[in-house]
């Protein structure tokens, strides 16, 4: 009997693989209820195209202001124009670690946990902040209403510059503390002209009251009983704020704000994965929007893992870079994101490379991308099912003219025990260029009770999967 398999879905590896062993790697789900054939489809995540390489590394931060993008790579600050011509502006004191950036339009404030610098956007110059009252040690920066706001020096305070729109003047008395709870403030972000102050256990939202002495104060009784597990994970997108949470009950839930109410967006499977990491305080995130999908990209450097939440579908998938030398999967390479020149530019966490994310690119700067989809375990009242064939419904005829990808192959393996052990790998062609009628079909697929299917592809071709049909019948044993 031929049946359609529920083949497309998110990553969800449950505590018991028998319950759910789903994995979606380097591809994301798109929903389209106007399509009868593919109401839920799986598309490959963007490949990367190298746009430039800084002589110093790693790429620590990037920012768009005026006609240029501004980057920190290693200990050097660069200006990059629309033609990707690079101008080195000067050096900062640190070579690695996250860098906080914020702009007031004319100045870009740059902080690295030790000192502060200002980029004059019009003059394209870099100067250290020499005001002795600048709060050295801050790591996070935001801008709102002509003020730079900085925090993260371990004191629990946040500071603002003394003179509006001038990041060079600071007054040691221009600070405040989120005192609704004694936890340390570690991150700050401005969203919809409100300042979100993330503590280790709680969060407060402040707004600008116009008070001449210190313009910011807490917005009414807005106080969230969830804090932040990693300062770098606070990011805004989709008209709200996202972060990796922590509070006095535990840590490792990913939240998005629904108004002032935290809404849990991580699943038990994601939380289980995060809970298994030795470190999560080093996590960082950035957001970007491509073809209507708003992605919150959350990377755990020590664990070598990257998770991605799509606000359009509310589903998670994994992203990973495959080392071409040894085939090992590790964290996705981007460390920061800037949208400029109509491109999504990302910096490499290890090298001085800046890439453009391109949905039509099918390699990571020339290295093959492993795309993988593993289904949940099928179930037929625990009867043994006999499978004579599986046809993956996908776009075929996508081969390249020559080289790798000229005869693209889809790999299949399956598990009959819910994902614990796997069959040998099988391959099927997905059609050379123009062979649109090619079928990715596998025959003689044995039997099992809790069948999990896994397809993967490394050829540098378009990846679009709509589902699968299986020929099978239930046995009586």
């Amino acid at each position, binding site marked *: 009997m031929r049946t359609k398999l529920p083949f497309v879905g998110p990553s969800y590896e449950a505590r018991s693989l028998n319950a759910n062993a789903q994995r979606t790697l380097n591809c994301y789900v798109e929903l389209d209820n106007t399509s009868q054939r593919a109401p839920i489809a799986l598309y490959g995540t963007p490949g990367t195209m190298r746009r430039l390489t800084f002589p110093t590394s790693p790429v620590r931060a990037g920012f768009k202001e005026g006609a240029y993008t501004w980057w920190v790579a290693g200990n050097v600050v660069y200006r990059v124009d629309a033609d990707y011509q690079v101008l080195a502006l000067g050096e900062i004191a640190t070579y690695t670690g996250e860098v906080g950036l914020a702009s007031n339009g004319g100045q870009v404030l740059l902080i690295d946990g030790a000192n502060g610098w200002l980029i004059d956007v019009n003059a394209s110059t870099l100067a250290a902040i020499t005001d002795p009252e600048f709060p050295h040690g801050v790591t996070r920066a935001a801008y709102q209403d002509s003020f730079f706001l900085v925090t993260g020096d371990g004191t629990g305070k946040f500071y603002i510059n003394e003179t509006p729109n001038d990041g060079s003047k600071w007054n040691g008395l221009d600070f405040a503390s989120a005192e609704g709870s004694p936890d340390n403030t570690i991150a700050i972000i401005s969203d919809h002209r409100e300042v979100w102050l993330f503590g280790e256990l709680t969060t407060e939202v402040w707004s600008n009251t116009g008070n001449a002495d210190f313009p910011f104060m807490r917005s009414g009784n807005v106080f969230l009983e969830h804090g932040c597990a990693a300062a770098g994970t606070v990011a805004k997108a989709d008209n709200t704020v996202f972060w990796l949470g922590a509070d006095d009950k535990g840590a490792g839930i990913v939240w998005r704000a629904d108004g002032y109410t935290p809404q849990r967006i991580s699943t038990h499977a994601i939380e289980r994965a995060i809970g298994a990491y030795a470190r999560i305080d080093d996590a960082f995130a950035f957001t970007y929007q491509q073809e209507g999908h708003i992605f919150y990209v959350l990377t755990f450097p020590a664990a070598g893992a990257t998770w991605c939440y799509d606000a359009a579908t509310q589903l998670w998938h994994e992203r990973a870079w495959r080392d071409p030398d040894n085939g090992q999967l590790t964290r996705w390479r981007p460390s920061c994101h800037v949208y400029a020149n109509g491109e999504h530019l990302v910096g490499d966490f290890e090298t001085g490379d800046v890439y453009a994310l391109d949905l039509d690119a099918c390699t990571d700067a020339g290295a093959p991308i492993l795309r993988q989809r593993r289904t949940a375990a099928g179930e037929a009242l625990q009867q043994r099912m006999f499978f004579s064939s599986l046809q993956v419904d996908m776009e075929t005829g996508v081969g390249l003219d020559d080289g790798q990808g000229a005869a693209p192959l889809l790999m299949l393996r399956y598990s009959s025990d819910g994902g614990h052990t796997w069959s040998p790998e099988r391959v099927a062609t997905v059609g050379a260029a123009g062979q649109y009628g090619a079928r990715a079909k596998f*025959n*003689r697929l044995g039997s099992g009770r809790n069948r999990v299917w896994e397809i993967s592809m490394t050829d540098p071709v378009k990846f679009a999967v709509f589902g699968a049909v299986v020929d099978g019948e239930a*046995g009586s044993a």
Partner: protein
Amino acid sequence: MATTTELAERLLRKLGVLGGGEAPSADDGAVAEEKIVAVHEAVTALGRANWPVDEVPPYAIEPYTLMGTVLAGPDFGRPVDTGAWVMGLRMLAAGSAAAVSKCPIHAEYF
């Protein structure tokens, strides 16, 4: 020549229990080997086999596998096709006749 283990794997593949390239689990393999031995005993009793169970000649491999599906089918929840047993016996008969005719015949002198 085919061994019992090889025939058992072939039997499991014929039943659809195993897919291409798969190896049987120990339990499934043991059941299938039991059935191959049973087929061999039956064929021997009918005078159709004069070889050890672990040295099944090439022409008997497919008949053994077919007949094995009749015995092993119920253990794996597969429907039984009794016609497969008859078909296997016929193939064996035809095979043994062909095998005899193709052998050199030595003259015997008394």
